């Protein structure tokens, strides 16, 4: 064997190892969720078993997991809808209009996105309590704007800057109103960017934990908070918890694959394409 093939072999082995390390933990979650309780609790672990959906059925029957799912879905999609509309408006303004302080406003919006959530949660909790919105999905739809709105503004600003503005200018000359130009001409042009931004804001809302933990109690509990409620002093319901974990991951993984082209851009706030 010459050195070159040896090098290639080592290279392939390392690559394969990297991906085993990345993918092994999620697979353990999935396998545990389709094992029976005794199989899941056996040591050494059972590798060959008959898959069962028992844990999923039990989670639905014995815990309000369908409510958690529904809450997560309602909160994430409402928040995404609001964020996309308002974020596009503001992003359009920052990308297209020339005015004093545009740079500063952009930077201010970006810096809000960087804020640690723990800094805002104490006053937001007190405010929501006084508005009697605790344990109400509305409180999360509103508070998730704190991080998703700056994100969407920043992303949409970037997408608008990428499309040529000549078409919009000719529409304006033809007597189309500014809002009409924005809505009928600019928005369709940035549709792919809009979808990518929407998917990411949905994922951020879906994954959020701290705000949901503090602002909900029973009725409005979201999936991440719901799953952690299976950790009890008396022990952990591994069956429920792994089933719930897999359910939480399904939409995220589907969306991740759909939007992967724009994910790097989104995850670096547009610093990278």
């Amino acid at each position, binding site marked *: 064997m010459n050195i070159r093939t040896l090098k290639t072999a080592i290279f392939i082995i390392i690559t394969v190892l990297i991906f085993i390390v990345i993918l092994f933990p999620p697979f*353990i979650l999935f396998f545990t969720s389709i094992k029976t309780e005794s199989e899941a609790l056996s040591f050494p672990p059972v590798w060959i078993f008959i898959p069962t959906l028992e844990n999923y059925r039990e989670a639905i029957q014995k815990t309000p997991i369908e409510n958690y799912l529904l809450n997560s879905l309602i909160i994430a999609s409402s928040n995404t809808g609001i964020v996309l509309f308002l974020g596009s408006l503001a992003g359009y303004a920052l990308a297209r209009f020339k005015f004093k302080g545009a740079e500063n406003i952009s930077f201010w919006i970006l810096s809000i996105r960087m804020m640690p959530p723990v800094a805002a949660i*104490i006053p937001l909790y007190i405010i929501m309590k006084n508005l009697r919105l605790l344990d109400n999905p509305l409180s999360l739809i509103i508070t998730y704007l704190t991080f998703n709105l700056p994100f969407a503004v920043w992303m949409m600003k970037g997408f608008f800057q990428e499309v040529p503005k000549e078409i919009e200018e000719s529409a304006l000359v033809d007597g189309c109103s500014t809002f009409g130009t924005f809505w009928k001409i600019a928005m369709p042009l940035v549709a792919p960017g809009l979808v990518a931004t929407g998917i990411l804001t949905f994922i951020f809302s879906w994954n959020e934990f701290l705000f949901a933990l503090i602002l909900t109690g029973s009725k409005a509990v979201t999936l991440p908070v719901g799953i952690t409620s299976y950790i009890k002093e008396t022990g952990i319901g591994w069956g429920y918890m792994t089933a719930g974990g897999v359910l939480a991951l399904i939409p995220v993984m589907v969306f991740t694959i759909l939007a992967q082209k724009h994910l790097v851009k989104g995850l670096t706030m547009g610093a990278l394409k």
Partner: protein
Amino acid sequence: MTKNKNRKIIVFLSVIRRRYTWLFFLAPVIIILISIVIFPLIFSLSLSFHEWNVIRGKEWTWIGLENYKTIFLYDPYFRSTLKVTFLYLLGTVPLQFALGLAVALILNRITTKIIGFLRTTLIVPTTMTPVVVGIIWRLMYNPDLGMLNYFLTLFGFPPINWVGKPETALPSVMMADIWEWTPFMALILLAGLQALPQDSFEAAIVDGASSWQIFRYITLPLLTPIMMVALLIRIMDSFKTFDLIFVLTQGGPGMSTEVLNYYTYRYGFKFFHMGYASALSWLVLVIVTVISISLIRVLQTKNIAKG
């Protein structure tokens, strides 16, 4: 006369409209952000000068800088959480960066179609629900039936009580964090590597540079801006770590994994000392802001900031 006046008003209004349209587009976002971010932050700053225990007293009591004085002078736990916070930062981000760079350099050499699949795999831990990441690792760390102890005993090592002992708890949480975020680093750096101009590499190869020389004198300098962005994002996120710690250790055993973020949460929502927790939360805010602004300054002075 009135007609003329009307026309003047119309002209005036249209000028206003054209000049300030941006304001109508931007106003909703600015008003919302002021009311759900700026106003709450001012509210909590004011609260941090008061004593207010939601359970015991109903009234706010003005105590001036007392909360901050207690934090800096008399609270031994604050110092311990500060130490854990920075240990956590130093134990995760540099390793994620080094490993991520190595992975990116390896993947950058793959030219076959499989790279698409590999890149998607890198995104998986990044967009995964952090609570679920915590659950997965709690499952793997389980001392009696976890995978990690199974592998340890398989190779003849004694099992470890991963998150159950103060000495191993923090490194265990860090390991989960490194698993979660190294692929993210690799993803960004890989995107950076693939966007580098090819001609300088070709010139270097023609000149007979070794692969180490190419890496040291061409790849690294060209990649610096992207490396800075990746580091900046991760350093700021590191201070926000909450979900992993909540699921894996709840800050324990003892205070061994209690970061500043988690300590603030406990003061506010377990002990209900809202004034004290507000003071702590403002310190978190100040620390994160100071660090990010200085990092952004470094980026800008090197004239490599974008957007």
